[in-house]
């Protein structure tokens, strides 16, 4: 796994491979392995694999190639060790990452991360993790009971339901005008 990489072929774009390597290291770091040397070993191993593949198809972008390899490796490793191949890839990954998190394997045995075959005790500890997200539903019917609002409801229905702000304001304006005119006409007599 930790074999020495062959020197880069002249046709390879060094910048593209640097970018790919950087991405891969960031990705592997997200697993919070307790041993940074293990991250380097895995990165070199995957880099090696990706370069081999790139020689067969030089049109492929190194970043895409190396990250596909990395994700495939993680996915298949989790599927193998969790024996849940019948699930969808997203379910396997979710279940697997949670198992990793709960088992704390990345801290206690970082060297075993992506190792094949996985020691039996670690394999069992991965499988035994169980995430209970919620209890089984026990559905009840909770609906409002009939409620009698009493006399206010009748009163409201006769007023607010028919209340129209615009027409009320218009009426007020009209009558204010009428009284204004009357006042102007008769104020001298008052």
């Amino acid at each position, binding site marked *: 796994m930790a074999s020495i990489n062959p020197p880069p072929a002249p046709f390879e774009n060094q910048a593209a491979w640097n970018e790919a390597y950087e991405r891969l290291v960031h990705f592997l770091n997200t697993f919070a392995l307790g041993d940074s040397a293990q991250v380097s070993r895995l990165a070199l191993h995957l880099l090696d694999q990706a370069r081999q593949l790139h020689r067969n198809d030089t049109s492929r972008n190194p970043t895409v190639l190396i990250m596909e390899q990395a994700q495939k490796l993680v996915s298949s490793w989790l599927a193998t060790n969790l024996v849940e191949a019948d699930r969808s890839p997203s379910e396997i990954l979710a279940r697997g990452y949670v198992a990793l998190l709960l088992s704390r394997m990345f801290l206690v045995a970082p060297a075993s991360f992506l190792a094949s075959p996985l020691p039996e005790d670690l394999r069992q500890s991965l499988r035994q993790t169980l995430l209970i997200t919620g209890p089984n539903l026990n559905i009840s019917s*909770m609906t409002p009971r009939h409620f009698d609002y009493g006399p206010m409801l009748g009163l409201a229905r006769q007023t607010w339901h028919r209340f129209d702000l615009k027409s009320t304001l218009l009426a007020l304006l009209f009558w204010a005008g009428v009284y204004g005119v009357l006042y102007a006409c008769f104020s001298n007599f008052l």
Partner: protein
Amino acid sequence: MSAPFSESMAGARRTVFVGASIFLTASGFALMVNSYTGQKMFGWDYVVLTLFPLLFSQIALGFILALFGFFDWLRGGDPFHLMRQSWRERENSIPLAATAIVVPVFNEEVARVSQAIANMWRSLEKTGEIDHFDFYVCSDSNNADHWIEEECAWMSLCQKLNAFGKIFYRKRRHAINGKSGNVADFCRRWGKRYRYMIVLDADSVMSGTTLVRLVRAMEANPSVGILQTQPLMVLGNSLFRRVLQFSSHVYGGIFSRGCSMAQMSSGSYWGHNAIIRVAPFIEHCDLPILPVPNPGKRHVLSHDTVEAALMRRAGYEVWIAYDEPGSYEEGPPNLSDMLKRDRRWCAGNLQHFWFLFARHIEMGSRLQIWIGLMAYLCSPLWLAFLIAGSFGAYDRIRFLTLSADPEDLGAATSSHAMALFIITLVLLFTPRLLGLLTVLPQARQYGGFFRLLISVILENVLSILLAPVLMIFHTLFVLQTVLGLQIKWTTQNRADTGLTFTHCLVLYGWLSILGVLAQGLAFFYLDKACLWLLPIFIGWILAPLLAWVTSWSPLGMMLKSRGLFVTPEESQTPQELMGLEENDLPSSTSSPLWIQALLCPYVQAVHLSMVRQRSSSSDDAPSSSLADLRERLIREGPQALNPREKLRLLWDAETVFWLHQQLWTLPARKLHPSWLRGQADCAQNPLLLNYLIPQERGSA
């Protein structure tokens, strides 16, 4: 120690309570009318006389409540109270029943909520009764960062406390009907599993002993539907919060004692820190639809009072356990936050008007509704009273100036007015004095007698200055609710970090202008009579300064170090409150938290485990709008999506998985630069460091 409770006794006490309030109000009104004897009455005087009994009745009500509370304190507690009945003698032998502790959250400070749950869990563990309790964090958060952080905090809690299968997290996809809808959703899904639920607020904490005692009280008294504790305000840093928590300690107890004594089995429910019998709650307490024309306003906003009324209607008792220790909450950190809360409460309380005259509602519940209604309606009435009083005074001064007989002012009756003024002051300040007397035996826990006294005096000064500000805002809230108007509200700080002066100027500056103008007009037209209005104008003029200064945490802490506004929980911090301060999530990256659900494998795994997994394979094509969102997110970065779009993406498990693959696989030129920064920061993301792999990672 105990005496059997009967409903007739509760009725008799209510009669005394209401009767005494009416008597005081009538006496005050008689004095008011007499003060006008022999004077010419102006139009404004009739307005004043109409409003006076309503307003005076509220002062009288508060006074009588305080008297009841003080009497209860003097005799060492109510022997007829539920918590003093014979079941207490065999309390420890009462078996517990399955109880859910429901914590509804909405964009809250996640670390704080999480720590509170951990504290309650540990406290329950100490009682040895943890097996009977399950925790439910029911989230309505509509902020993607909060949602993802809540999930990680839940995972962390379960790991830390070994509480998988005991602490649950539920995020509602559609947050219908706010908190009451959230609690109802819990009841519908899991209510049948539990005999009781203890409803908390996001800032609530309760001790294990209290939680266990509440369950035992309910088990021993099958007729009780709701048992409300009296939560004490704690953990204040800002001056505003410290003053509030101090006053709630000094005066709150006497009022809740009084409430409990007057109301007995028709007590209040405040929506949190209370235990509820689940089956009758499910059967009887789903909130009715309000009969208003606008479909958007048919939901009851302040659900607690209505739920208590419905529980009473169903024949169950509602009690306040007013002297049970170990029940805590936090107050608003500043004036702006309090007003924001008040606006919500005001709208809710005004809705309760519909229930005031509803059929089959208990008299005690009607009384609660009336008190709640008047708490906010009083503000516009006081304002109208002051305006009418000022205009009345102006009319009188003008009449006096023009009158041939200046004696018409009615000097002979001024003794009635003075008597009324003194009585009003007595009614207003006696409850505070009685509250002070009740805490005097524990004066040392409040910083000593003199510091307690100085704190009370300062609290009164601050209350007097803030009261006119609250009056104006509450009036606006009432008008807003009644007319359906919108009040523009600037962004405010949520934590104890203080308000900016600009914020205070924008929000309260107009009050200063109003104060100066009103003072000028009053001085011009009312002459010396304007001095009566001075406390109100000073409150208005100083409003921005008051809001700003009281929001300062350093000032609050400085006063605390001098022994002012100190409360017993600060002298001796209970275990349940340990570690609840300074729970902000330290951010080691500049990236938003929610993108970790797309980048970080562990955060993503927790999220995918929580959201419903689609049964279809990842090969299924997403809807075109979802595909657009995915592409936009990759090309334009996380900031390109609005809050709604973020939530939509996060709800779709396959999209989250697909984006995780794409964001790590695509070459840099196809990704927005923020994703490259996100990848580099991912291993140091705060969700990982603070929740999923805390401490141990650093040591590794």
